[in-house]
Every structure is written in C-alpha cells, then in structure tokens.
C-alpha cells in the first residue's frame, strides 16, 4: 500500500500555508509567511541537512563521495526525468548524474551550489518587447516563443537587494542609481546601493584574465558571489563565516558557513519560530483542488513510512526545483502545453543554458595554484551579454558573459589534461603534473531562447518509485543559441590570445551538435510554469500566482519565460521576495482572489 487509497489517507489539521520544497525559495517564503504571523508547514521530500551534520570538516571535502558519487543529489533510481531531442522522439530516463545535478533535502540545490548571485539585465526581463523595439518586429524568428516576464527590473530592484543582503553577496556595484562606478559592471541595471560585502580577492588566474581583458579595452568586474568575503550578519541576524578559498563549493555543503545557503542565512531563525513546522521525507504527489477546481484545498504527500497524508492548507506555495514544480502542476492544474497547436501553458518554454569555453595553457613555469578557489569568486566582462552589443546582422538573439572563475583544483575532476594527451599511465601522470599549474578556462555562459518545440510534459511510459509518471523533457540545441555561443566564445578567444598562452583551444558547439546529457553542463533548467501578462501564454501572473487556481503560487526558475546569460539564483531569490511582498501586502487582505484580473 505504498501509495494507499484515498480512504487510507491520513488527514492533518489545516494550516495557513503549506510550502512544497524547502530550498532557497521555500525558506524565503517560510520566513516571509511566518513573519506575517501565518502558520507554515514546509514539506521537503529529502532529509534534513545542516552544516555541522552534513558539512563537517574534513569529512565534507571528499570529492569521491560528493562530486563523483553525488551524496547530496537526487537519487535517480527513485525519481528522475526522461529526455528526448524533439517531439517525435522517444524519451529515455536520465539514469546517471550528468547534464544537470538536482538537489535533494533541506536547502535543496542551494546547499550544494557555487554561489554565483547575478541580477539579470533590465532588457532580459522584457525580452520580446526589447528586441522588437530595437530591431523591428521581424527580428525574432518564427518558432522562437520568447516573451516578457511581466515585471520590470525597477520593480524587482528592492527584492534583488533584499536577497543579496540575506545571502551576504560579495561584489562591486557598477551602477548605483544611474551613476556608473569604475570596477563594477557598467552594464548592470541601476542598483539602489552597494553590495553588502566587498568582492572576494582575485586568484592568480583571475588576475591574468583581468589584465588581458583590460589590455583589449574591456572593463572587467568581480562576479557577484554568495561566498562571504568577511564575517557577515544578515538582516535576519544570521551570521556567515568568511570564505577561505578551499575549493570545495559546488556539490558540497560549506563547513566555513560562508557559502550562502538556506542553512547559513535563513533556517537558523526559521527553526526557532513556533509558527513554522518542517516535515522532511515528505514527498508531495498532488495539489488538491475543491470541486470547482478553482481553489486548492492543500496537498497530498507520501511520508517516510509510505503513508499517504493529506495536508489541508489555505495557501499552497510550490517552491520545489523548477522541474518538480512543473510536474506537480501537470498532474491537475492548468492546461498542458501542446507543441502541435501551440496551445496550453503548463510545460511551455522550457529552456537551458549554453556554455562555451576557451582552454588556455599558460607558459611552463606558471603557478596558478588552482587549489585556491571559490565557488563564485571570479572576474568577468558583460560586453557580449544580453543585448549589450548590436545584434544587427549577427543572425542571433541573446548573449553570454565571459569570465574566469576558479572553483578549485580537486584531485579527480580538476586534473584534466590537454586534448590529445594520454589519459592513462605514466604519460597521463606527466601530462597532469604539467597541466595542473598552468591550465585555466575562460568560460562563456549564455542565454538559451524558448522555442515552440522545447517543452515539458508527462512521460507516457516511465514512472517513479511512487508510481507517478516521470516528467518528460523535450529539448535540443537551436542554431540561434549555437551561433551566439560561437560568436561570444570567439571574443573570449581574443582575450585568451592577449594572455600570451603557449596554446589555447576554443570549445563552442557546432551547428547540428545534439544535446548530450552524459556530461555535466549546468543545473540551470528553466521554464514550464512561466510568468507573464496573459493567461493564454503563461501559467502564473506577474506575482507568480497561478492564473487558474489563485491560492496556489509557483515560484522559482520555472517562471522564467526563457533563460538568461547568467546563473539564475539571484533572479529566483528576487522573484520569491517580490511574490512574498505581494502576498503580504495584497493577497492576504483578500485571500483566494487573483492579484491580476483577466
């Protein structure tokens, strides 16, 4: 009776708010809703996790356990997605960790991320209108279904600031209230104030990149990093330690308490609140609706003992990872997207991230000391991101940031050899020791547009351990994004040349290269429950409130109409605070009602 019948379901007492998924968004929403005096129950499918228990030094700096065997990741043997390249194909289950690394447990992917905390460009949030205005209505090709977020950068600004202050982001402003500042990113939207912490120190590779980029006339800046550059107490009173550049950020919990995560920024306060209850190993299977189908009555989950439990709630907040948010909706909320007719909304506009790189081999005798690394500290330029450069005649939309950031020099994954060198035996050993100190990557992290044939739906064949259909991802690279990546990565190669390397290799996808899920690329999957101004083309309104069921809010990267040339977490955090603010200021005065009338 693992999933039980409805007659077997245990029913809990009604709560004001139920939160599904206790990662960044769930923690932010729980903090905001308990602040508003509401009783909150947070359901997390994975175990509880905290720094002293799950990031204890030196046990946590175990590359084999965490990076290779994925100790903190979702167990794909119980729940995964299926993937195919196009709507005519047959999707197969994603059975081994590869292209993206989904988190699990309290803190979610926010416990094992790197900490890059960008804001999008103002134009990123009104993409369709921006390109149409600047280049004319014919500029956006057929089949590209990009659209505006429905909320402006200026409206979100206080909430970007709020998230950065909570996360203790280290960086240097380039634009405060319209005043451009040397050393910061002059392309960024106007900020209301400086970052809460100064930038992390530049490691040697960054210094070399910085010098080369400046010699070409670019103005470089420090990447905003959710790795505290000094001890820092955030607005909740939670204190972060300083980053010690240990090089174990991605895939690990942070034993220094310096990488921003729900554990290091919000949960210490939340755990003390009497109107907050956390239930772990609670796997939500469904949002329950009343007979009209217009109001949610709560959620149903499977607990650790396999019991089916109903948790009634007045307000339901879906704050699981992007893919899981969409899967929950597909079970019974909103009209599923149909790529043949273009109608329906749930699952629409799935997007990903486009990465390119230039591998630079510096002259012998260079000592990069790559083991000195941080998750998010880095140096970048934004000249080729978004629409910061003229796209006329280039044949593509979008862009990428170019930069260098050194996440570490770990013994298994970060001891690569140059192309063509042996990968076994004595030859390999020699190549590793030659390569380790003088090889570095310049990356290009680029946008991916939304298309009519990239979407999410339920798989007709494969089911998870609870008997529920897996989510099916239909995605392949499109020429637009490959052309973008080639263009920007070639610009990165010019910087590589200015570093006077002994050799360099440009790694950009070629037109026609299919999406290969075997290799890690990025966990920045987006869309499927996108936000917008029109219920015909979006699942949630500008406040992340479900058009069809107004007491359900769906928050996360699932709301991005297409993906940006940055890491998504800064925008995800801001959207959560923005939505929470709308709930507190307006929704609660008139609960159950839409915040945007159709």
């Amino acid at each position: 009776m693992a999933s039980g019948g409805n007659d077997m379901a245990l029913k809990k007492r009604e709560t004001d708010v139920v939160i599904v998924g206790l990662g960044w968004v769930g923690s932010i929403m729980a903090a905001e809703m308990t602040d508003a005096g509401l009783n909150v129950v947070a359901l997390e499918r994975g175990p509880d996790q905290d720094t002293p228990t799950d990031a204890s030094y030196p046990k946590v700096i175990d590359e084999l356990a965490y990076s290779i065997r994925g100790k903190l990741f979702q167990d794909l043997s119980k729940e995964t997605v299926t993937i195919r390249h196009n709507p005519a194909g047959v999707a197969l289950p994603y059975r081994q960790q590869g292209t993206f690394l989904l988190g699990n447990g309290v803190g979610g992917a926010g416990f094992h991320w790197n900490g890059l905390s960008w804001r999008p460009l103002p134009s990123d949030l009104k993409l369709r209108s921006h390109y149409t205005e600047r280049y004319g209505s014919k500029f956006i090709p057929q089949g590209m279904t990009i659209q505006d977020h429905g909320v402006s950068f200026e409206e979100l600004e206080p909430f970007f600031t709020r998230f950065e202050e909570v996360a203790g982001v280290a960086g240097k402003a380039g634009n405060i209230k319209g005043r451009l500042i040397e050393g910061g990113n002059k392309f960024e939207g106007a900020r209301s104030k400086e970052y809460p912490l100064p930038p992390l120190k530049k490691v040697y590779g960054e210094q070399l990149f910085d010098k080369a980029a400046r010699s070409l006339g670019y103005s470089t800046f420090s990447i905003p990093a959710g790795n505290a550059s000094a001890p820092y107490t955030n607005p909740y009173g939670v204190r972060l330690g300083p980053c010690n550049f240990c090089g174990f950020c991605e895939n690990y919990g942070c034993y220094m308490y310096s990488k921003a995560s729900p554990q290091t920024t919000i949960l210490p306060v939340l755990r003390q609140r009497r109107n907050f209850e956390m239930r772990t190993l609670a796997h939500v299977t469904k949002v329950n609706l009343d007979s009209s189908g217009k109001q949610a009555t709560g959620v149903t989950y499977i607990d650790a003992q396999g019991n089916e439990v109903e948790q009634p709630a007045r307000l339901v907040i879906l704050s699981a990872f992007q893919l899981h948010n969409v899967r929950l909706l597909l079970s019974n909320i909103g009209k599923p997207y149909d790529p043949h007719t273009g109608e329906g909304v749930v699952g629409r506009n799935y997007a990903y991230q486009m990465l390119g790189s230039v591998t630079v081999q510096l002259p012998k005798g260079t000592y990069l000391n790559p083991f000195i690394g941080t998750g998010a500290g880095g140096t970048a330029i934004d000249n080729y991101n978004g629409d910061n450069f003229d796209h006329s005649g280039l044949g593509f939309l979008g862009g990428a940031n170019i930069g260098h950031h050194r996440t570490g020099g770990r013994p298994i994954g970060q001891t690569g050899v140059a192309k063509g060198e042996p990968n076994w035996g004595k030859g390999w050993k020699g190549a590793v020791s030659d390569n380790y100190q003088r090889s570095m990557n310049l990356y290009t992290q680029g946008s991916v547009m939304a298309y009519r044939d990239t979407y999410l739906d339920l798989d007709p064949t494969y089911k998870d351990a609870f008997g529920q259909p897996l989510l099916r991802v239909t995605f392949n690279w499109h020429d637009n994004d490959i052309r973008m990546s080639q263009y920007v990565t070639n610009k990165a190669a010019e910087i590589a040349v200015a570093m006077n390397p002994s050799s360099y290799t440009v790694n950009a996808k070629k037109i026609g290269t299919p999406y290969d899920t075997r290799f890690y690329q990025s966990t920045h999957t987006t869309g499927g429950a996108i936000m917008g101004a029109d219920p015909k083309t979006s699942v949630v309104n500008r406040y992340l409130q479900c058009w069809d069921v107004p007491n359900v809010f769906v928050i996360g990267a699932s709301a991005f109409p297409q993906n940006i040339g940055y890491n998504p977490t800064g925008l995800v955090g801001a959207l959560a605070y923005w939505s929470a603010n709308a709930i507190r200021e307006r929704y609660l005065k008139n609960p159950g009602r839409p915040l945007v009338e159709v």
Partner: protein
Amino acid sequence: MMKKLTRTVLTPLCLAISAAALAATDDAAIMRGEYLARAGDCMACHTAKGGQPYAGGLGLETPIGAVYATNITPDAEHGIGAYSLKDFDKAVRHGIRKDGSTLYPAMPYPSYAKVTDQDIAALYAYFMKGVQPVAEANRDSDIPWPMNMRWPLAFWRWTFAPKVATETGSTPDPQLERGRYLVNGLGHCGSCHTPRGIGMQEKSLTDSDGDHFLAGGAPLEGWVAKSLRGDAHDGLGSWSTEELAQFLKTGRTERTAVFGSMTDVIQHSMQHLTDADRLAIARYLKSLPPVNASPAVKAESNTALQLSRMDVSTPGARTYIDNCMACHRSDGRGYAEVFPALAGNPVLNGKDATSLIHIVLDGGYLPGNQHAPTGYGMPGFAWRLGDQEVADVVSFIRSGWGNSGSPVSPEEVAKQRMQH
C-alpha cells in the same frame, strides 16, 4: 514595590482585595518567579533531555554514583504540589525535604540560602501556578548502600551549609550588589566554578570568604569550569565587562565561544535575563581580584609565521595545519563571532587541559539562541587522530601564539577517550 505585591498575595489581607486584582498580582508574581527560575537555571537539572519541563530525571554524576533531579512540577503525588510556601523554602534555601530528610548538596541550597524571602515567594508562585503538573515518578539515586543513607547528609548540612540570610552588600553600588546577589545566590556559579574541599563543599561561598571563590573547579563530566577571577592568563582579567555581558547573552564574542556545560547555562538561563542583570553579573565578576598577579598572555607572531610557511618541525604543527587551521587560521585568531580564537584565549592556559582534549576528541556545538540565531559546529576528531596526535596538537595550541598552558601527554588523552 515588588516586596509589597508579593506580601499582598501571601497574607490573609489578600482576601480583602478584588478577585481581578488578585489575579493580576498573582500573574505578576508568577512572571517574576519564572524569571527567577531562569536566573536559578532550575531547568538545567530538573528537566531531563527531551523530557517535560521540571518533571525531573536528569542524572548528575557524583563521585559515588548518579543523583537524579526530582520532579518539581505542582503534581500532588510525584511533584511538589503538596508543598506549602514554608515547605518549599525549607527545601530551596535550607536543603530539607518535606519529609525532613536532607537533600543531596547537588541541589545548590548553600547558594540559594542567599535568596530573598520575596524571591522565594515568587518562585513558589511560579512553580505552583505557572508550571504544568506532570505525573512522573522520581528516580532513586544510583548510590549504593551504605552511602545512600541520607542521615549523614544532615551532618554535611550542619557543617557546610551557611545560615539562610541575604548577603548585605559591602558597597553602596546597586549594580554591583545586584550582580553579587545573582552570582552568589540563584546563579549558583560557584557550584562549578569554585574548587571543592574534602567534604565536596565549595571552599568558599562568597567573595569575602577567601580567594578560592570562583577560582575554577575540578573537571565535571569532562569539562573544566574556568576561573572567573581577575587572573589575566587563565581568568577573566583580559575580558571587558561588556564582552562578558555579551558572552552571557549570546554565548559568543569577538574572540571566544561557549562550550561544554556552560552552553546549557547560556541556553536555559543567561539568554533569558535582562541586559541590566547580565551587565550586573559581569561587573560583579570583574570586581573579583586575581589570585595570581600574573601578566596577560603576550601575543607573539612566531607561531603564525611558522604555520604560514608550513613549517611542521614542531610536534602538533602538522596536525594543526591539517585539521584546525581552516577555521582557526594560522594566526590562531579565528573569525569574530564565528570561530573562536585560540591565540590568547585564557581557557587554554589553565592548569587542566581536560576541556581542550574533550573538545578536540568529541567536537562541540555552539547553539543559536534568540539573540544570535546561528549555531556553529566544531567537528570531533576522535575518529581521525590518535592519542599522540591529539596530545601533540593540544600541547601545540596551549603553547602557540604566546599561550602558556602546560603540555599534555598521550596517556591523558587515552584516559579521556575511554570516558566518552
């Protein structure tokens, strides 16, 4: 004022006042009693881990066997529901149970003897009306016969317990007097921080009674209660009053963090006091003169230099670099209010290294509280370091950066490892 109110509740005069007024005064006394129960940290012993508040059950190790704290909820059968104010006073300040037998001096009645009448009355009001009754039976001590006979305890009481009387201050400074009252009375700091004599009695119960007072106790449950006197190298000489008050409030300061048994004192008691009371306690403690006029630890930079050069020629240096330096740093200064400093930390310079060995073996946890929500963990290293390595690294820390603690032997480490 408070005295008047309490009296009103407790004398027949209260019959004359209205029921509503009575309830209000009652509530005030109960709230005051609750605060005083926090100041006395009654919960620390009278609540078992994960148990009902004040239902008893926590075991206290004594050299002759464990003694279990009793149920002090107002349950008539198992608790103190049948106690009159007089019975309650007899137990708390005089160490005599309702049945006339003497309490184990694990109950710090020699300190509580200094509590005022009105505070006892408020405590009584709280325990009778502000605490939920719990029907949980008391547990007998593990002390074997014939030591478990209680009548000799009366001799102990006659010999060592002081007369019940509130100390009259020697200074006209009300803040200092308040501090003295809290430290020597309800706070019963001396229970752990004052050395004990041949009869297990605290060698002195007040500052006017010799310089043993709060001069540091023997290890209890693997932790050493440090000297709270003005000694610069191992007492509170290098602390400022404000720093001490902050420590009592949050368990952490710019350079230190609470550990061991004191963690619970902060959590259950000190964090709940008012800023004024914590400052009074800090001022009083800072008024205690040193036993030895030794100079403060003089910081030196050689250790930091050695570690930053990865010079592992000194025993313990290698272990320090591999296990400790990530957080406590090469300069031994840690990070303010995150990871405590080892350089110049008086807790490392005491004669007894038990606490330090203990924390290296088992680790520790600085819990968050209402004033400082973040909890920080120190991992234990027992699984990873041998006795010699622990001895070396502890000796290294006790002598690095100008610290002046004596070296530790692997035998001491082995002995402690067996105990935990």
